[in-house]
């Protein structure tokens, strides 16, 4: 299932065309800190201007295009900081924009339709949001600094870091949980929750949830497919050095 008119994305693909055929592309550019007014620029040109790793941009663009198979990804250690920066922008978008927006829609929904089930939904979302915040903070405050410290160590600097603490592969399971509850929310709103003059607000809420779901899934894939393998590679390299 391709989400744009392009089956493969190459360095010569015009970025504007990607965004025109799949508006979610705007989010990708935002996470990369690229502004619109793309004119006829190709992927290669946009990356060169913004100093983005071509390999990384192409991989993320393919993810946004609905691709899930990446047989041989080859990233450089220099890409790690860019990946972290991209992920931090995702986090900011979730916590500062998307979740508050969804929360506001649920409150509005409750105003139109104060059924006990809707009140339960509000509490469900609140608990879920707290879980998500905790997970994102854990990434911001523990995982990312740990990865940066690993890079420092590899470069021969001497950060305070202890390897026995944890390894990065520990945190993969968190994602499933986050995506599951989001899908539960959609199912409840579409299939089960009693409707009562809330048609428009329910639609807005669903669109908002879908937008979040789309971006969140890619964010998880970037962590699982790109960041975690890269970091495991660094961990192993350091262990080898350490043993010598």
């Amino acid at each position: 299932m391709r989400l744009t008119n392009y089956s493969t994305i190459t360095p010569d693909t015009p970025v504007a065309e990607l965004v025109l055929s799949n508006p979610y592309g705007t989010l990708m550019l935002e996470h990369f800190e690229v502004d619109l007014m793309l004119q006829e620029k190709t992927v290669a040109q946009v990356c060169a201007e913004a100093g983005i790793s071509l390999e990384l941009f192409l991989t993320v663009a393919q993810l946004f295009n609905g691709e899930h198979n990446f047989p041989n990804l080859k990233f450089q250690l220099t890409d790690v900081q860019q990946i972290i920066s991209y992920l931090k922008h995702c986090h900011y978008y979730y916590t500062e924009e998307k979740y508050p927006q969804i929360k506001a829609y649920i409150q509005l929904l409750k105003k139109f339709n104060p059924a006990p089930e809707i009140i339960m939904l509000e509490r469900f979302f609140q608990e879920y949001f707290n879980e998500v915040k905790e997970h994102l903070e854990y990434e911001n405050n523990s995982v990312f600094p740990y990865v940066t410290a690993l890079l420092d160590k590899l470069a021969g600097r001497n950060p305070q870091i202890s390897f026995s603490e944890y390894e990065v592969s520990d945190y993969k399971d968190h994602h499933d949980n986050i995506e599951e509850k989001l899908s539960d929310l959609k199912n409840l709103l579409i299939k089960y929750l009693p409707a009562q003059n809330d048609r428009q607000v329910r639609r807005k809420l669903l669109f908002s949830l879908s937008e979040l779901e789309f971006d969140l899934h890619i964010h998880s894939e970037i962590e699982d497919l790109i960041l975690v393998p890269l970091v495991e590679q660094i961990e192993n390299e350091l262990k080898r050095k350490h043993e010598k």
Partner: protein
Amino acid sequence: MRNSQIHIILAEPSPIVQTGIVELLAKSGLHIKWYEADSFAEVQRLIKMEAINLVIINPQLVVNLEKSLQNLRSEDENIHWIALVYAMYDTPLMAMFDGSVHLGDSPEAIASLIRHSINEDKPEDSANRQPLSEREIDVLKLLVTGFSNKEIADKLAISTYTVISHRKNITQKTGIKSVSGLTIYAVVKGIITLNSVAE
């Protein structure tokens, strides 16, 4: 259906009858994989080991084992059970089966009964529209009241493995995975009342 091959257990003590049924149905055009059993224990073992669609069984093998049969049926509700009868049986026993074939029935009649019972359930599509079974509702009630898989298994006298399989089916039918999401579902459907929700 899985590649249209039907997996059938034929539980019948008489080798003559067994061979006869297998032979006659070989010409029916049905693509059947037979598992032969001569006791209820063997049927239980086969159901655990293999992906069975249908059991054709001589009711004599379940006389005085009605409880075990009920448990086995509630563990996997997708398996159809057909009684293979030589004579008349009392109705309560026959009520435990989905249908029956008589020794005097023509091979065509038996084949059409098999076809019919298999085509009744197209797993993916119909599972999503079916309401929950009584057993699934029992599990759901306990689950949203805050019990663990293990506690639910003890309360309902089934294995933890069976509880997990019920939970899988509940999620498949409702589309909802998390316990807190299922709680809201249960309230909407009137399966539990608001004040029994685990805080």
